[in-house]
Every structure is written in structure tokens, then in C-alpha cells.
């Protein structure tokens, strides 16, 4: 194994103003701990209570979106290096005092197109349209035990008040690496 340049990772995270990051298995227990850490941290700061709530709300949706997705992926072949149950997320302070939540995980290549389409569709909506779309989905879709039937992405856009940024990388013929970034100002 090549020598790990931790200092460089540190500098990059410092540059991006990352306050919390994790790479590895995304479990319920991990999410509980993250919520506790984040809640304790924002409780201590002199943050606007509205912004705190929005941030926490979006954080929960982003992390659970990733968790639910990875649980689904685990039911597939999980022997490949791409699909080993591992994901990454970072929480950072944005410019102008906002927060940034970034998640990264593998998805099946065949699902990348539809996901991109859905995010583009949501990003094209204004707040009124987002609300109407959310209510329509809430009122009409069936809940699965894997989460909120696609409500998560709409809610991230709605609560953050910003466009969802995303990226797809294609490291293998089977899996894509999906990055989602939400900003709360």
C-alpha cells in the first residue's frame, strides 16, 4: 500500500471548510451518532434557529437517501470493490455562512440516467411548483420500507432553497459513483 498522504487530505478538507466527514459503512448507528454530533454542535453555535432546523432537516434526508440506496445495493452482488457498502459524506461550512452537505455512493449504471433526469426535473421547478409536486407525490405514492418513495430529493430541494448539485462518474461497466451536494444558506 502506497504511503497515505493524510496531510494533503487534511489540507483539502481545510480548504473546503469541512467540519465533519466520514468514509465507510453507512449504518443506522452511524447516522444516530452523526445526528447527535451535529445537533450538539449547532446547539452550541450562535446560529439562526431557522437555518439550524433547515440544515438538520436536509442533512437527515441526504444521509437517509444514501442509506436507503446502499441498503438496496447490498441486496445485489456486493462482492465488487465498488459495491461494498461503503459511502462517503462531508459536511462543510459554505461561503456566506451557509452549510454544505455532500454525499457520495455507488449506484447501478442503469439507474444513473433516471436519477439525473429526476434531479434535473426538480431543479427546474420554482418553490411553488416544488411544493405542488411534493404534495402530489405525498398524496399519491405508496411508502416502501426503503423510504419515502422519492420524496427525499424533492424535500432536499424544497428545504435547502437551492438547486441540487450532482455529478456522476463512471469507473466501471456496472457501477457509477453518484455525488450529491446540497447547500443551505
Amino acid at each position, binding site marked *: 500500500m502506497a504511503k497515505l498522504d493524510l496531510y494533503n487530505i487534511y489540507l483539502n478538507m481545510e480548504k473546503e471548510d469541512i467540519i465533519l466527514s466520514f468514509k465507510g459503512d453507512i449504518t*443506522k448507528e452511524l*447516522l*444516530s451518532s452523526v*445526528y*447527535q454530533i451535529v445537533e450538539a454542535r449547532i446547539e452550541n453555535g450562535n446560529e439562526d*434557529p*431557522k437555518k439550524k*432546523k*433547515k440544515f*438538520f*432537516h436536509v442533512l*437527515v*434526508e441526504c444521509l*437517509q437517501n444514501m*442509506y*436507503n440506496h446502499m441498503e438496496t445495493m447490498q441486496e445485489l452482488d456486493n462482492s465488487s470493490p465498488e459495491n461494498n457498502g461503503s459511502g462517503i459524506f462531508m459536511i462543510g461550512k459554505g461561503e456566506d455562512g451557509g452549510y454544505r452537505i455532500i454525499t457520495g455512493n455507488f449506484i447501478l449504471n442503469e439507474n444513473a440516467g433516471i436519477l439525473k433526469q429526476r434531479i434535473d426535473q426538480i431543479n427546474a421547478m420554482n418553490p411553488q411548483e416544488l*411544493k405542488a409536486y*411534493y*404534495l402530489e407525490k*405525498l*398524496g399519491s*405514492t405508496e*411508502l*416502501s*420500507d426503503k*423510504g*419515502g*418513495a422519492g*420524496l*427525499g430529493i*424533492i*424535500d432536499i430541494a424544497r*428545504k435547502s432553497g437551492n438547486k441540487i448539485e450532482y455529478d456522476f462518474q463512471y469507473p466501471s461497466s456496472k457501477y457509477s459513483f453518484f455525488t450529491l451536494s446540497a447547500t443551505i444558506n
Partner: protein
Amino acid sequence: MDNLIIEGTNKTPVISFKADTGTLEIAGKSIPENSFGFYQPLFTWIDNYVLNPLPKTEIKISLEYFNTSSSKCLLDILRKLEALKKSAKSTVTVSWYYEADDEDMMEAGQDYDSLVDLNFNIIKI
């Protein structure tokens, strides 16, 4: 029938469903990964309650946070109570509480009010 009392955790709300008073309370945070698993016993309790309800039923919801999968479960609870109201076996009042600075939670109450035919009180605390 028995009351349904569940203590709150950092991901799940306090539940106090009382068959002897007809009051159903949900309070705290509702952000479990598997909301359906958490809410299933509540659905079952309501399905039993509506067989022999009190003449007046009140549901009090005071949530600090809830995730989107819980939002679906809350709607399912309200839909069960809407059916109870329609059956004319009980009146149903929804008291939706929100903290003064939490406009999102107030709006969530209004959203539910628009989705179901129930008497809603949206109350600032």
C-alpha cells in the same frame, strides 16, 4: 382496548395513544430510517380503535423534525382518522403544534390540512 405508549428516542417520537380518552399524541422527532416499521403498531392500534371509538377523538401532533418517510406515515394515520370521521362514529380534531419560529412546520400542518378532510387547528407554541 390497551393504550399504546412508546417512549421517545433521538430518532423516534413519544407516542401516547389512549383508548380511554380518545387522545392520540405524537411528539418529538420522527426521523427513523425505517419509518414504516416504527409506525406499523400505530396503524394497527388505530385500526382497532376505530371499531369502537369514543364519540370524540383528538390527535395532537407536535413534532420538532420529521423525515419524508415519516411524512407518508403521518398522512396514512390522518387518512385512517378521516375514514373514522366519515363513518360518523366519532368527531375528529387534529391539533398541529409548531414552534413560533418554525414556519416550515406550520406549513407542513397546512399541507396536511389540504390533503385530508379533517378539522385542523394549527397552533403556535
